[in-house]
């Protein structure tokens, strides 16, 4: 108890330290910039943080890192805007947000959807911040339990779950999309022996297909084509609903919020997997537990809440190992860590010993960025609704211009524009045949992880497969994966339900809350 009070004390003094006009000014512009970067398809949080690092060389370290954290947190949140309004995830972290956000917007409830996304992001960020402040060092050490075997299963688990969730009527198509994504990731120089796979002598393909152009193509360009082909313009409706979410409605989902916040934080702590996967896993968990699970994918407030809470909780989560072990928990956190080094701050295992006040400063920075997010989230929503009223013949060319420049901007290669176009066409065809795009994008992210960790694990064990099945975390991951596949096969599921009923005859049927 005394320890918590001491923590609180340090936290408050860190907050007070940033209550200067200059610091608040930096918070306000950098959070806004982060939201804009996140909302523009193709510009990611990683790129935003790397870009703004260039602008902060001359600033004192505390302000520089404050700015970077605001950009990071803002970008992850900002991506929900384009996900809800345009069905294009602004950053890979918002792919799960499109599933329920866009249907809500189409049903004329865009204001509500954005309000829910705002509250989810803010609450997720606060939950992550709580863990950052209280248990950072303990959680940091836990990150090392994830080794090659666990990463392998995490990749398989991710593809199977996301394939299932995004194609509920026909999970087969979700899995096909996911495995095609994994296959796409095989192109390029592989990470163990540096052999060039499927490149056929082209230097441009050495690095494989980059994620961002592929994602922008599969979601953005494909969306442009599908909107232009559809017989009628998207039904434009006034957002009659209030933008400010009702507190009662938000807290009805307190279980989902806390669960997603926890999942997001933990995924954040695991090195190498970031906000995108955090959103997926919390979305999956929410659906599993939800009484309204049938509404998921068709405009479920709870699903939207889970995805947005999960990805923002991941931000402070990813900062935890960066601070306490100098191991970044996600790609943007890697850039943040580098920026800390450049500014002469020394995160790592010694930080709690040498400069514990810095940890609380970072907590305060997360707090300020969350505050900025909340304020902009509530004020910026109304103007954004105009987007829905623009006729498609005028909106779509602008969206496509952004898709093209967004694909190009990250590495500044025209090759990436062609990648965007290729994946747009490929994605459009698959979409028309009801293959979901999200598992494919996740596959592109996970392909590399799967490939290297499987083979690395096999090198380490000299070909012995047992550790893949017996290590505790691996065991849980593969059991969940296999049961998820089995339960999606109709006869097996019915059998399982019958068995469950036979065992617990006094309980109501599966599908309702039984706790």
């Amino acid at each position, binding site marked *: 108890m005394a320890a918590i009070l001491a923590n609180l004390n340090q936290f408050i003094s860190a907050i007070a330290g940033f209550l200067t006009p200059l610091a608040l000014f930096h918070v306000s512009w950098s959070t806004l910039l982060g939201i804009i970067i996140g909302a523009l398809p193709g510009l990611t949080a990683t790129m935003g943080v790397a870009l703004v690092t260039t602008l902060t060389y001359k600033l004192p370290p505390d302000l520089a890192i404050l700015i970077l954290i605001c950009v990071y947190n803002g970008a992850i949140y900002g991506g929900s805007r384009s996900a809800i309004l345009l069905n294009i995830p602004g950053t890979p972290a918002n792919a799960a947000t499109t599933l329920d956000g866009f249907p809500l917007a189409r049903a004329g409830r865009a204001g509500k959807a954005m309000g829910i996304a705002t509250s989810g992001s803010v609450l997720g960020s606060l939950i992550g911040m709580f863990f950052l402040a209280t248990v950072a060092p303990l959680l940091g050490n836990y990150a090392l339990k994830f080794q090659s075997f666990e990463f392998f299963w995490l990749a398989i688990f991710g593809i199977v779950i996301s394939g299932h969730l995004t194609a509920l009527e026909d999970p087969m198509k979700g899995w096909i999309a996911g495995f095609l994504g994994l296959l796409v990731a095989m192109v390029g120089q592989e990470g163990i022996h540096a052999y060039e796979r499927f490149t056929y002598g082209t230097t441009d393909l050495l690095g494989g297909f980059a994620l961002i152009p592929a994602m922008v193509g599969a979601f953005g360009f494909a969306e442009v084509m599908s909107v232009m082909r559809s017989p009628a313009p998207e039904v434009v409706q006034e957002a009659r609903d209030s933008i400010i979410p009702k507190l009662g409605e938000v807290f009805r989902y307190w279980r989902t919020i806390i669960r997603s916040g926890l999942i997001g934080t933990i995924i954040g702590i695991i090195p190498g997997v970031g906000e995108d996967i955090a959103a997926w896993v919390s979305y999956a968990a929410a659906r599993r537990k939800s009484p309204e699970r049938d509404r998921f994918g068709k405009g479920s407030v709870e699903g939207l809440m889970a995805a947005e809470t999960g990805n923002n909780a991941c931000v402070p989560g990813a900062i935890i190992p960066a601070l306490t072990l100098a191991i970044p928990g996600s790609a943007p956190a890697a850039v943040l860590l580098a920026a800390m080094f450049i500014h002469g701050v020394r995160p790592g295992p010694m930080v709690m010993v040498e400069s514990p006040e810095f940890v609380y400063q970072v907590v305060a920075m997360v707090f300020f960025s969350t505050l900025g997010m909340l304020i902009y989230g509530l004020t910026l929503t109304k103007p954004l609704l105009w987007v829905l009223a623009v006729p498609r013949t005028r909106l779509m060319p602008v969206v*496509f211009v952004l898709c093209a420049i967004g694909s190009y901007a990250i590495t*500044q290669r025209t090759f990436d524009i062609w990648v965007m176009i290729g994946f747009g066409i490929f994605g459009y065809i698959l979409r028309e045949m009801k293959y979901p795009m999200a598992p494919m994008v996740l596959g592109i992210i996970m392909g590399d992880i799967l*490939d290297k960790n499987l083979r690395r694990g096999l090198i380490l064990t000299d070909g012995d497969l047992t550790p893949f099945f017996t290590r505790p975390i691996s065991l849980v991951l593969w059991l969940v994966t296999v049961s998820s596949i089995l339960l999606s096969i109709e006869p097996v599921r019915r059998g399982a339900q019958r068995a469950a009923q036979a065992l617990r005859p006094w309980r109501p049927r599966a599908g309702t809350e039984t706790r």
Partner: protein
Amino acid sequence: MTLRPGAGSDGNPPPSHLPPYDRSEKTADMVKADFLTGLVLILLSLFVVFESWRMPRLEHLKVHPLSVPGLVPAFLGIVIFVLAVILVVRSVLAGGHRLGLSNEVLRRLRVEPGNRRLLVTAVLTIGYAGFLVGSIPYWLATGLFVFAFIVIFERRRGMTRREYVRLGLVAAILGAATSAVVTWAFQSMFLVTLP
């Protein structure tokens, strides 16, 4: 406008307790599409497995035999093969192999207004991003693209001269504004060297 008002009829997938196929005409098309995709996927997976088999085993480097580059692609190829076979079998059971492609069907596809809009969109977008960008200044390419897109899709038969001027003006303003804002933001704010 070439657009007709009214809500689209799609977007209502069958409830989740039904098996993958119901009996509507739309589903009949999907069954056929699944049959063709399945065949394409089978070919693709066989190609991948074959290529994986051809990848070097690096024996001279004495690497671990289970760490060869072809291992994971081969594994993925096999998984996709299995999934594709299920897809094909499922679709054949529903009659998907009877494609019934006639000239009449193909002609209908060609003149369907949605498909024509799709074709125009594809030509415009790919022409812009793939060829125009990089060969003329970025701001000019972007302005032209937005202008052309709006004019082509919003023009109708029987428009008066004044309406044409109006449309041209709107398109020109939007094109110029988009081009100016995007060029400024990416060049000056995000410091991107534009193509």
